[in-house]
């Protein structure tokens, strides 16, 4: 999995100084945060639905193997071929094999985060298959050769002018900036691809074990087109996506669109089971389902297991003050924001994503809004703990904490040192009552003054005042 997380601070800097991105982030925040709040009001007891959804996810994770086996059996009974892949390389091998076997020249793709995770497009193109992204946002990214910046709103970092430029360059039509016109142009350009593609590739929001079905949610209709018209359909997703029954899927569907975009339901929900039957006028002749592990199985039974409950709604990042300041690209990986800061190090390796668990104030807003109650702030802290145990924390921090600990455990020394610091800072602050710089403390003073303390510690003042009425 491609990860460029170590450049987080530099990319955050660029993002903070990008006024168009800042404007886009402000716009999405208002829309998604308010949207979610209003949509949840349509439920009589949203917290009860969330608790039930959490229970469904935990039920599955407690015996994930059994549920996947049940799903596999049901899917196969309907003519689907189920493949298991340990990592991205295996996915690439399976997919190119499928493409070769069925003589695939062109594939249309409906949005799939897992396909990004494993760099699927590149692998297929290397095998001589033309891959066309059909989700409008992903199509725009394909033209721009950029990665998505949000799991639900992949091009929130682009303005309509930038998109107009892209279309004018690639479509050879007169440049237009009206959003409806741009959308229509994309529809006209992509429609022929749907009709001529040999293979449709999709993700799966859920795998329903009861019926052996793949469940996909979209708003645009490209998901339906990509999985109905071509003769081969390949669905690829993570092993943790399985849910037991249709009722369970219905509960999760009550929360996913509301948490993601503030919709009560997405435009299209497709429940796809097996291959074209006798009597079906349409549908794929061949249906392949690829189940990807890529490190997920290792999380079961660990402190970090709850991250596997994630249903990829994006609510955590929509509400995260850090994500809302810098956008998704700063994280340098497929999954940004709070859930991404946990999942990425776990799947790609802690050493490749060291800043991510630390790029958080642990404010806890993410956990507050997660539809499946993942304790995201606690998991971020747990990752910091794993870093500490493995010696991946910054040396300066480790030494400072050791010094701090030595003081904290020695009250008399602690109070003497604190008293001196309080006195010194007050003297340095002087009449202004604040300091603007201190040697060695550029991290603080680059952006802030430091208000003067009260000249002594509280305990010293308290001891002095004892006995006074």
């Amino acid at each position, binding site marked *: 999995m491609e990860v460029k997380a170590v450049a987080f601070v530099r990319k955050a800097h660029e993002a903070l100084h990008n006024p168009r991105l800042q404007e886009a982030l402000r716009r*999405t925040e208002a*829309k998604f945060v308010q949207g979610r709040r209003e949509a949840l009001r349509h439920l*009589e007891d949203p917290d*009860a*639905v969330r608790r039930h*959804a959490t229970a469904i996810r935990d039920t599955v994770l407690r*015996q994930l193997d*059994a*549920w996947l*086996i049940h799903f596999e059996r049901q899917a196969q009974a*309907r003519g689907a071929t189920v493949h298991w892949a340990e990592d991205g390389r295996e996915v690439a091998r399976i997919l190119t094999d499928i493409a070769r076997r069925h003589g695939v020249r062109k594939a249309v793709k409906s949005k799939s985060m897992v396909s990004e995770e494993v760099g699927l497009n590149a692998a297929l193109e290397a095998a001589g298959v033309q891959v066309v992204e059909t989700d*409008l946002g992903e199509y*725009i990214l394909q033209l721009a050769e950029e990665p998505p910046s949000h799991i639900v*709103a992949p*091009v*929130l970092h682009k*303005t309509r002018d930038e998109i107009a430029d892209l279309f004018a360059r690639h479509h050879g039509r007169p440049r237009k900036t009206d959003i409806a016109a*741009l*959308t229509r142009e*994309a*529809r006209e350009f*992509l429609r022929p691809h*749907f*009709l001529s593609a040999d293979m449709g590739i999709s993700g799966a929001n859920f795998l329903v074990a009861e019926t052996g079905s793949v469940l996909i949610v979209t*708003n*645009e*209709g*490209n998901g*339906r*087109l990509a*999985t*109905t*018209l071509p003769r081969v359909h390949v669905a690829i997703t993570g*092993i943790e996506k399985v849910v*037991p*029954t*249709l*009722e*369970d899927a*219905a*509960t999760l569907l009550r929360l996913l669109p509301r948490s993601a*975009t503030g919709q*009560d339901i*997405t*435009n*299209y*929900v*497709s*429940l*796809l*089971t*097996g*291959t074209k*039957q006798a009597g079906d*006028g*349409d549908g794929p002749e061949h249906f392949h389902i690829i189940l990807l*592990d890529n490190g997920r199985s*290792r999380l079961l*039974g660990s402190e970090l*297991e709850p991250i596997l409950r994630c249903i990829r709604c994006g609510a955590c990042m929509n509400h995260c003050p850090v994500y809302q300041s810098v956008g998704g690209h700063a994280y340098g990986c497929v999954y940004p924001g709070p859930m991404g800061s946990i999942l990425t190090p776990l799947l790609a390796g802690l050493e490749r994503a060291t800043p991510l668990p630390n790029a958080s104030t642990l404010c806890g807003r993410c956990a507050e809004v997660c539809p499946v109650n993942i304790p995201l702030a606690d998991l971020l802290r747990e990752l910091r703990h794993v870093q500490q145990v493995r010696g991946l924390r910054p040396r300066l921090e480790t030494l400072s904490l050791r010094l701090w600990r030595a003081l904290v455990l020695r009250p008399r020394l602690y109070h003497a040192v604190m008293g001196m610091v309080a006195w010194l800072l007050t003297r340095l602050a002087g009449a202004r009552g604040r300091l603007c710089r201190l040697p060695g403390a550029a991290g603080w003073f680059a952006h802030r003054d430091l208000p003067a303390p009260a000249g002594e510690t509280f305990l010293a003042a308290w001891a002095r005042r004892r006995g006074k009425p």
Partner: protein
Amino acid sequence: MSARERILARLAAGRRDDTPVAARVENPVRGPATPHCTDPARRFTERARQLASTVARVADFSAVPVEVARYLDAEGLPRRLAAWPEFAKLAWQAVGIEAVFRPAGADDPVGLTGVFAAIGETGTLMVTSGEGTPATTSLLPETHIAVVPVQRLVPTLEDAFALLRREAAIWPRAVNLISGPSRTADIEQTVTLGAHGPYRVHIILVGL
């Protein structure tokens, strides 16, 4: 050892529950749902309109062609459509509509379908694949007209699934839930109707 075996072995190590999964599958549990309403047709209509579909109501099937003609004229659309075969017996020619009964193609301006069920909670149409219910008819044309008998209105998605379990001899290859015209908000988070699917959805409720 295959990838499947390796993955399952790792998963087995993390298993904490040996209850046979069939137990839960055979006794599905419903989660908390929105409260039932006394007038599902009204709730369906409200929600569907919120999603930018238009909704009309007629007393019986014989009135459908007239309503379709009215709608097409009001929208400035040609009186031509591709419909599911179950509508072949309606009086299309009498109202000047040229109707063909084959799966819609990309060039058909209007697709007319029935539904398996309609869901009041969210104003959603449930359409299933199968003989006589081609999926392209609700997907390829720019306008989709759906004929919904009020007896097929159910309160929640769970009710629709339960109905499908009861009535379907074989579980359909595709169950599609349709909630309004296709849309995207990818460009500047501004909602635009008419992405890859239909631009317009008109729903005709049939029955009193």
